[in-house]
């Protein structure tokens, strides 16, 4: 029984990381309307910025690391992606451009920090709760994801920004005609998403390790979590993240680690075939 709770805690930690990444990605997608793979770069930017800053500031470095990532997101959105949007680039071109951005960021990080694994400064001490071994960082990760979900839900439902976001998510052209400042909204959403991504990268890195390529693998899981429920609804990504983490843990436990990714992507294929709009999206409001 102890080990059931041990696995449950670890699964919850993983689901928390996926929630943060998936929520940020869905937020970005609901405005941008293309698969912004460059979003994954901010996971690595946040983690490495923390790695660098924590040498001087310790754990407090989380704040400047997140701010740094947000700044990079603002600059890239303002001076790169917005310019491409102005040229009426297709979603495919935008996706390729974002992939280029992520590859560039990965290469720069690898040049400055090497491709070797790095370990982030954190409190590595463990606490035992009825023989279940938990580290502080696991508890913090779960708490941060939980808070982020509540906070973002409040933002989406109670603020003008959130309402604009839902309007753009439903129909971008109509929203634009209604006078919603799409460009401004896009820059704000990209910045918030980058902050969330950076935070997830830092927390994941504190719990495990980081490499310059951390963004891509985590991004794939985040996208999967978002697609599972409804990629256009950042509020419910946590459900997809939980499903994903539980399936991965069950597969590793009962079948074997080698089947982990295969099982997840098999599920994704089935969902895309049977409910392409996601498990939680009502068919009645499906966009044409």
């Amino acid at each position, binding site marked *: 029984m*102890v*080990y059931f709770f*041990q*696995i449950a805690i*670890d699964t919850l930690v*993983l689901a928390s990381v996926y929630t943060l990444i998936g929520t940020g990605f869905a937020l970005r997608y609901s405005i941008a309307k293309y698969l912004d793979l460059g979003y994954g770069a901010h996971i690595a930017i946040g983690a490495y910025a923390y790695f660098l800053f924590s040498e001087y500031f310790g754990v407090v470095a989380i704040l400047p690391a997140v701010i740094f990532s947000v700044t990079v997101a603002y600059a890239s959105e303002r001076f790169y992606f917005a310019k491409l949007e102005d040229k009426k680039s297709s979603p495919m071109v935008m996706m390729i451009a974002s992939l280029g951005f992520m590859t560039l960021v990965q290469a720069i990080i*690898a040049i400055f920090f*090497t*491709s*070797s*694994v*790095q*370990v982030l400064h954190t409190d*590595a001490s*463990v606490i*035992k709760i009825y023989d279940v*071994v938990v*580290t502080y960082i696991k508890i913090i990760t779960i708490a941060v994801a939980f808070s982020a979900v509540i906070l973002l839900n409040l933002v989406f439902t109670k603020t003008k920004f959130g309402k604009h976001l839902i309007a753009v998510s439903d129909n971008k052209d109509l929203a634009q005609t209604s006078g919603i400042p799409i460009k401004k909204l896009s820059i704000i959403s990209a910045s918030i998403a980058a902050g969330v991504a950076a935070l997830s990268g830092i927390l994941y890195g504190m*719990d*495990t*390790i980081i*490499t310059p390529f951390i963004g891509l*693998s985590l991004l794939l899981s985040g996208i999967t979590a978002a697609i599972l429920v409804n990629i256009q609804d950042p509020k419910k990504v946590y459900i997809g993240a939980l499903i994903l983490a539980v399936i*991965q*843990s069950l597969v*590793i*436990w009962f079948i*074997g*680690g*080698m089947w*982990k990714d295969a099982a997840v992507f098999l599920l994704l294929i089935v969902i895309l075939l049977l409910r392409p709009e996601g498990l939680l999206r009502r068919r009645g409001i499906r966009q044409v």
Partner: protein
Amino acid sequence: MIKKIAPVVLLIALGVGLVSFFSNKVSNEGSSEGYVKVALLLPLSGPFGGIGEGIKNASLMAVEDYKLTNPNLQVDIVVEDDSFEVVKGISAYNKLTTVEKVAGIMMISTPVLDALHEEMKEDGLPIVSIGLQSEGVGPDNIFQTTLAPIAPIEFLAQFVDGKNHQKVAVIYTNTLPAINSFHDAFVQNYSKSKASFVVTDAQTARNVATKIVSENFDAVVILQDAVAGPLVTRELKTLDTNNELTYYYDLQLATSWTEYKKILGDTNKLNDSYTLSIKGGDTSAFAQQYEIKYGVPPTPFAEYGYDSTLLLIKGYDQDTTVWVSNIQNDRFVGPSGEMAFDEDGVRLQEIEVIVVENGTISQ
């Protein structure tokens, strides 16, 4: 008119001049008496960058030492980075053979060697590799200065067999062919109760560690790469609070020591673990010389870099066939132990199992 033509003529003349200058330079290199240009094809970036850098330093040290007693042979060294990656390695090899026109190569990256071994055989240059050659091993121009990969794993399996454990967990990764073959060799040679677990990342490491601790295994054999090995060890050590597990490692523990230190934080956590080790020569003098020269202790395999480079240049002959034969038949004792090869050019070495003590691996 002349004003218009003159710059073009000048450019053509300059181009012809440059081409003839460089073609003369290339044709002279590697063929004159008493001169040899050899390459170090090493991972100087990526996960094995640190090991590659140490091997490079040791190789340059070997060349300097050789020159002290053999001043008449001028040795020119070219260094290329392959990042332990096939694509980069192929590109670097082509540059070395076609542009740099080196006469011999010392390398380490197994994936690069496996991808290029046919081409290397055709080219005929002496290749001295510290890394394992897992494909196309035979009596040719490719030499491996570490012993055959499977033999140590069979030795480890027999050693663990003798320990009478009730239940042994074998942890490996299925994404690397070499480690897959190590796993197969272990399970074929270990006769008692065992179960295999695949670990590929942090999540699988965590779940597998929980499963192993929950199912009362009393020993783990870790046949892993430089990242998954330390990760699964960290998770096991976190859960195995009463130290009930006995840990066994293959040679990866020594080669990935830097990563273990980084991820575990304290290598004393590895105390009492068993690990394979190659009975080497006396590395103390080498280590001292290295540390004086570079200010840091030698990295794993640096002594192999020293001996491999020495082997390559010691046997030099303008006739490549003679050179290859010289390498095959050379016998000397260097910091990595006695250098001797079997008929396929694979090094013959003795292995042993040692215990990690005081956070270090020492024989």
